[in-house]
């Protein structure tokens, strides 16, 4: 019973906290509230997931209106897992944020920063939990609008143009999604996703259904930065404040991919998708994304931009898994969703620490910094090894699953591409490691920090500890895969079940 209330509390809690933070307008209170809210949400999401991992489904009817008329929150294993990822990363980011935000954001903007952060968090959670497709659109816009604002707070003025581009493209994607939803509504007369999945196959006007499908997919693909619709991502992630790039890189695209999975496998059915061009398209785009993203990552001269392009490549792996349209493929995608969130967050946190010390993360300015910050460097190496997919880390688990799935379908070109992707990852990861460890330390070019400032001397404990928690979990979940693997498997089973998840 109590799990039902949890589903709505998860959204309501940050929704209440955000305006309170804005009204109180004190930076230390803002941080404390953000941390406590995200930690509470994390605990609740763990609780909720434990309630649905066995395959049961939680329903919550908003305002007591029965679905399909009212809005329904519907939590099964799939969105339970994604909600856990979002909450976990948000809590880690909040723990990490204090000192980094103090340094990067002007003091008077800090409360508003946390307010926007909570709104973004709330939007992403809402996308995960809602069972109503229009409600999903609204949450999509809530999270997007706040993330545009967050990105624009970056110190480099390029953050502004990056944010504007993201705004234009993001709105375009969301609007496409909205048209698709409208057409689906026109064909079926319902907005509830469970109800849609029943009525779509019965719809008379197949043209309408097909058009809706295409528009929804394109809209979501823009949000998920699927190649070739990834153009907004590299700049947005590399010029945003460190805390924002940590949070968005680990959650925003993941949630968009969740929406894609939800729409393909639940709203529409596997049988429907099989008969379209989409699976082949997804596989090819995934493969191209892996190669293109990795190649571009090798060519970058800044740590964050390199990580951003690596994200494009990693999204490619997830898309490929979805494109296989098999249980094994989708399981691999979901596990990678979870694992990639861990490692990318850890890597961006390390970048954040370098920025904290050197004020920038371009290769030229972080030369030899690894020797001065051995702990940060070591944690970064662990996360970077995950990115390559070294056995014993999370990256290996997902790649192994994906390779399995590709072999099952005899997709030999994809097997080769996955392995080549790993090899390319070695190159860019090692480029980073060499810069940090082997290049001689040059005189630190510090701008904007008073001389003798203690920032230069040491890294804040809270930031380093959070980084290490994530780095160690990269290893822990690489060896003990119970949580990620079992949850993903159970989620996939529900999606592939004969009744298409009607419960």
């Amino acid at each position, binding site marked *: 019973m109590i799990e039902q209330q949890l589903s709505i509390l998860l959204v309501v809690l940050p929704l209440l906290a955000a305006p309170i933070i804005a009204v109180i307008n004190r930076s230390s209170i803002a941080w404390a509230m953000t941390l406590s809210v995200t930690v509470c949400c994390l605990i609740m999401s763990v609780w909720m997931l434990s309630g649905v991992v066995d395959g049961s489904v939680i329903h919550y009817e908003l305002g007591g209106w029965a679905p399909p008329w009212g809005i329904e929150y519907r939590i099964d294993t799939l969105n339970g897992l994604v909600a856990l990822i979002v909450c976990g990363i948000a809590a880690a980011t909040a723990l990490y944020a204090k000192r980094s935000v103090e340094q990067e954001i002007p003091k008077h903007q800090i409360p508003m920063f946390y307010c926007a952060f909570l709104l973004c968090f709330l939007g992403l959670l809402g996308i995960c939990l809602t069972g109503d497709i229009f409600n999903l659109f609204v949450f999509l816009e809530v999270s997007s*609008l706040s993330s545009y604002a967050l990105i624009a707070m970056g110190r480099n003025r390029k953050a*502004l*143009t990056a*944010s504007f581009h993201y705004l*234009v493209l993001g709105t375009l994607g969301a609007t496409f999604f909205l*048209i698709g939803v*409208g057409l689906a509504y026109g064909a079926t007369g319902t907005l509830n996703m469970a109800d849609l999945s029943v009525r779509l196959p019965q719809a008379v006007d197949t043209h309408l259904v097909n058009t809706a499908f295409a528009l929804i997919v394109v809209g979501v693909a823009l949000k998920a930065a699927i190649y070739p619709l990834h153009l907004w991502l590299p700049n947005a992630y590399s010029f945003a404040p460190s805390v924002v790039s940590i949070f968005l890189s680990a959650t925003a695209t993941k949630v968009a991919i969740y929406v894609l999975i939800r729409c393909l496998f639940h709203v529409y059915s596997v049988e429907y998708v099989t008969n379209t061009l989409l699976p082949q398209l997804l596989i090819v785009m995934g493969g191209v994304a892996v190669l293109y993203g990795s190649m571009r990552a090798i060519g970058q001269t800044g740590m964050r931009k390199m990580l951003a392009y690596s994200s494009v490549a990693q999204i490619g792996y997830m898309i490929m898994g979805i494109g296989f349209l098999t249980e094994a493929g989708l399981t691999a995608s979901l596990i990678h969703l979870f694992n990639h969130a861990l490692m990318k967050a850890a890597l961006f946190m390390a970048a954040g620490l370098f920025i904290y010390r050197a004020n920038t993360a371009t290769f030229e300015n972080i030369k030899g910094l690894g020797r001065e910050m051995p702990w940060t460097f070591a944690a970064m190496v662990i996360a970077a090894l995950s990115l390559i997919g070294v056995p014993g880390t999370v990256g290996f688990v997902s790649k192994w699953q994906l390779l399995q799935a590709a072999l099952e379908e005899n997709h030999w070109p994809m097997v080769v591409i996955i392995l080549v992707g790993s090899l390319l990852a070695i190159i860019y990861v090692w480029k980073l490691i060499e810069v940090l460890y082997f290049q001689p330390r040059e005189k630190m070019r510090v701008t904007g920090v008073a001389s003798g400032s203690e920032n230069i001397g040491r890294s804040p404990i809270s930031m380093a500890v959070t980084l290490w928690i994530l780095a160690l979990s990269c290893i822990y979940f690489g060896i003990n895969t119970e949580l990620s693997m079992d949850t993903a498997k159970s989620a996939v089973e529900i999606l592939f079940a004969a009744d298409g998840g009607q419960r």
Partner: protein
Amino acid sequence: MIEYILGHINYWIIIVLMMIGLYTMMSRPNLIKKMVGLSVFQTGVILLYISMAKVTGGTAPIVAEGFTTYSNPLPQVLMLTAIVVGVATTALGFALIVRIKEAYGTIEEDELEMMDNEE
């Protein structure tokens, strides 16, 4: 044929509207014009929903004696939300443009790109 076009005249207009918006967004380097295009595009979608909800011969969806056919109220309610979202997006976009003007001194995209590449 002519009947098909005339019968769906509202949809044709909406499509033309949306294409105008999309084209403006893509072809104009001026950021404000881009926002205008985006708004027009969004308005097209709002009209799409509204015209879908119209039932021939239906009245405003208020329960009253003597009326049995009503227009579908749900899309209209949805569009209220969408309008709010659209206004927020436009406001945020303009706020960003103001900041860009302050930081770069221009709002022409080609000039912005040139300045970004110089760095």
